[in-house]
């Protein structure tokens, strides 16, 4: 007998405990509705902390942009709007499939839920792939955070002696010029990118292993599902990365003028195209600090979301969700929408400055 005499009037033996045989209902809840409402309030409060977490970064952004508009005007031209917009749409689409997945879960449509989650995961991976290309490209141009930032004009100045060196075909000069030829830069970007995607592959793989280890009594089905998630993520990543490198290569190599080629060797093509350049302001690196912090933190959230979605996929495969127990899908969905929401603001703030 486990009856705590809470009040002396509670004489009758209550069999509350025996109702709790439902494995989907935690022992301290009375009903699924209560469990769901509790979780929902919890996740909303978590989103509140996320909003305030990012508000710090938005605060920085606001302060630096309003104090140094010229920096943002100057530096945002190095970001590729097309890639940014494409990524926005990919993320929006993943939000749609997530919302659709929640609907499927609420209606108990397991197959639909699975499809939606897989598409969401793939979209997330594509987003990361594009992002990794963008990072690689920035790194190649020295457009890094303030402490590592190299002015594009510095490149430009350095390009002349380097080109002269190439003509004289000194060892060092040749290697240098080689680095900066259009094809070489493409190869180099591709090379570094594959390096970066390999790292992300490893991250995905490790997360997969970690995820698999989290499940109690994993069986073949679990393992297959985890493996599937890893594969989807990795393929999506490659797809995103190579689609963007393809776009970048062919998009810009189409009928370049001689001058453009020369410029493209050393500075980003977007910048090279401009006839009248905006002079480089001081603190240009600060923009890239803000850029890397904001998008980096966002990317970490994407990775976290991918792990959570993979977990959902595994549980869906096991048929864990029913019409009255779908809280987890809804909550992770909410998180995913928030990640999307932040990107909705990041995109115009970083890419669309005119």
């Amino acid at each position, binding site marked *: 007998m486990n009856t705590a005499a809470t009040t002396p009037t509670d004489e009758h033996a209550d069999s509350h405990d025996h109702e709790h045989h439902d494995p989907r209902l935690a022992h301290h809840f009375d009903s699924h509705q209560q469990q769901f409402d509790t979780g929902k*309030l919890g996740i909303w409060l978590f989103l509140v902390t996320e909003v305030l977490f990012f508000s710090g970064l938005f605060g920085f952004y606001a302060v630096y942009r309003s104090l140094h508009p010229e920096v943002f005007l100057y530096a945002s031209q190095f970001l590729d709007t097309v890639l940014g917009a494409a990524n926005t749409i990919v993320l929006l689409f993943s939000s749609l499939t997530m919302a659709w997945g929640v609907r499927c879960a609420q209606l108990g449509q397991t197959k639909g839920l699975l499809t939606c989650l897989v598409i969401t995961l793939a979209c997330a991976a594509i987003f990361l792939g594009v992002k990794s290309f963008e990072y690689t490209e920035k790194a190649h141009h020295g457009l890094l955070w303030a402490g590592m930032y190299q002015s594009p004009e510095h490149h430009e100045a350095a390009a002349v002696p380097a080109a002269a060196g190439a003509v004289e075909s000194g060892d060092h000069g040749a290697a240098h010029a080689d680095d900066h030829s259009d094809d070489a830069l493409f190869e180099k970007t591709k090379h570094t990118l594959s390096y970066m995607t390999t790292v992300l592959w490893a991250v995905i793989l490790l997360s997969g292993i970690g995820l698999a280890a989290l499940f109690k009594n994993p069986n073949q089905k679990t393992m297959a599902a985890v493996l599937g998630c890893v594969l989807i993520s990795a393929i999506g990543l490659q797809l995103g990365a190579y689609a963007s490198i393809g776009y970048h290569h062919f998009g810009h190599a189409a009928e370049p003028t001689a001058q453009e080629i020369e410029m493209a060797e050393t500075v980003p093509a977007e910048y090279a195209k401009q006839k009248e350049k905006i002079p480089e302001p001081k603190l240009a690196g600060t923009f890239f600090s*803000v850029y890397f912090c904001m998008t980096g933190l966002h990317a970490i959230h994407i990775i976290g979301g991918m792990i959570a979605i993979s977990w959902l996929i595994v549980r869906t495969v096991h048929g864990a969700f029913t019409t009255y127990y779908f809280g987890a899908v809804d909550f992770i969905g909410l998180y995913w929408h928030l990640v999307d929401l932040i990107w909705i603001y990041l995109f115009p703030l970083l890419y669309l400055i005119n």
Partner: protein
Amino acid sequence: MATVVDSSDPKSNYPIQYRELNYLNCSKGWKSWFFTLDHKRIGIMYLMGVTVSFFLGGLFAMLLRTELLSPAKILMGPDTYNQMFTLHGAIMTFLVIIPGVPAAIGNIILPVMLGAKDVAFPRMNLGSFYLWMFGATFFLAALVIGGLDTGWTFYTPYSVRENNASIIAALLGVFVLGFSSIFTGLNFIVTIHTMRPPGMTWFKMPLFLWALYATALIQILATPVLGITGLLLIVENVFRIGIFDPSLGGDPVLFQHFFWFYSHPAVYVMILPAMGVISEVIAVHSRKHIFGYRFIAYSSIAIAIFGFLVWGHHMFVSGQSKVVAVIFSAITFSVSIPSAIKVFNWLTTMYKGSIRFTTAMCYGLSFLFIFAIGGLTGLFLATLATDVHLHDTYFVVAHFHYVMMGSSLMGLFAAVHHWWPKISGKMFSEFWGRIACLGVFLGFNLTFFPQFMLGTRGMPRRYYTYLPEFQELHVLSSMGAYLLGISSALMVATLVYSIYRGKKAPANPWGGASLEWQCSSPPPHNNFDHPPLAGDPYVMESVVYNEEIGGFVPAECQGDNNGSGTAAGEKEV
């Protein structure tokens, strides 16, 4: 199923008083503790962690005070001194006071007081404790690596430098501890919203729960900003992103805004739960209904909200602009009003009561005294003209120790003594408890009151050495610190002794009317098997003293037994 043993008297229809098989011993082995999802066990682990950290931080304080006995070197050089006050501040703030009342006592008491079986997210609760441990490990790492001498405020650009492993470790610790705090707060809010049993309406909640609710609001809304600040400072240290470092175009004053946006509300994370404890302790030990329930409840929420709008008063001389300083000064005064309301309500609660000077009440009364000084001296610092002189002096040190150390820890000590019979199931020695309380009270005031004078007379804080004219006051202060240290040790010794040799505690030793006193001491694993019936938590007449049991029993039981429902018990305290 559990075997219930009523230790007091098996015959009666009294509620079960002491339970042999309780949450402490219902399962055994280290796994049953380290992987427990029981909020009470998690709270106990927090309490132990907080105690250990308190003595570590306290040890640093003793060493610092010893060094300050004389302007010359006694124990350590300036570098060690700087590292020690940094760690003293960081440990006491992040590891002791912030988790002290909410995470340790709140975890144990909140669900029981609310009539719930557990907090809303037990796993997250355990996770929060492990995050706390993890964060504490980072702090220890910073201690071992050495060289963390930035002050707990991590002001840039001093905290941005080449050799920064210990700074990064400490910042990671702060980041992790921030999440621990967020999870606790999140859990509490959700629990209070969704886990109330039928009949427990918002205005039947004990005021401690209101205070914890207000605290949790702050934890959720402010702590993420600390998280991002810490993260950015780490990134600044590792990559040089140039947003805090002026040599790369960053802005150190902006860092202070970021830091204090959290750290000022954090002050209310420290004091609000203590205020909640005092609301309980004063009402129960005066045997009186709390006066002005709604005003106290609303003032907790008001403090939480105003607390967000005043962070700039830490920056009146920092290079912050005049206009912002004036705005912040004006809003700062608004925080003092809800605090004043609480103090007057507590006083009025005592009016015509039957005040028993139990150890918990002694701490409660000490709180009133200390908080009166701490709160009132805040007015000097909120006023712009005087703050310019007093900022960064020992006056500030004294003020925030009166509020953060004096008041918050008095609240924690009061809470521990008030709920100790419930937590451990044992009664501690009231005699030694009160001796310790007296020592803590005297020691505390002796330590920190002279520091007000040091501050106004021109002694800046964080000084390793000082002008010779300040020595007398410093010596006084150090003497107080030793007394304070010894008394706190005595307090812990008294409590620990009671676990082994204490009398078994009745369910309701003090005569509280809130729900936690309705379950046995210590509570069973599930707290309540049926949702308990919540009434007004401050109708003290609903329980009466019973000599047989040595504690209070519901009035209707007493009536059934001997028909003398009104006789006051000869409570030996």
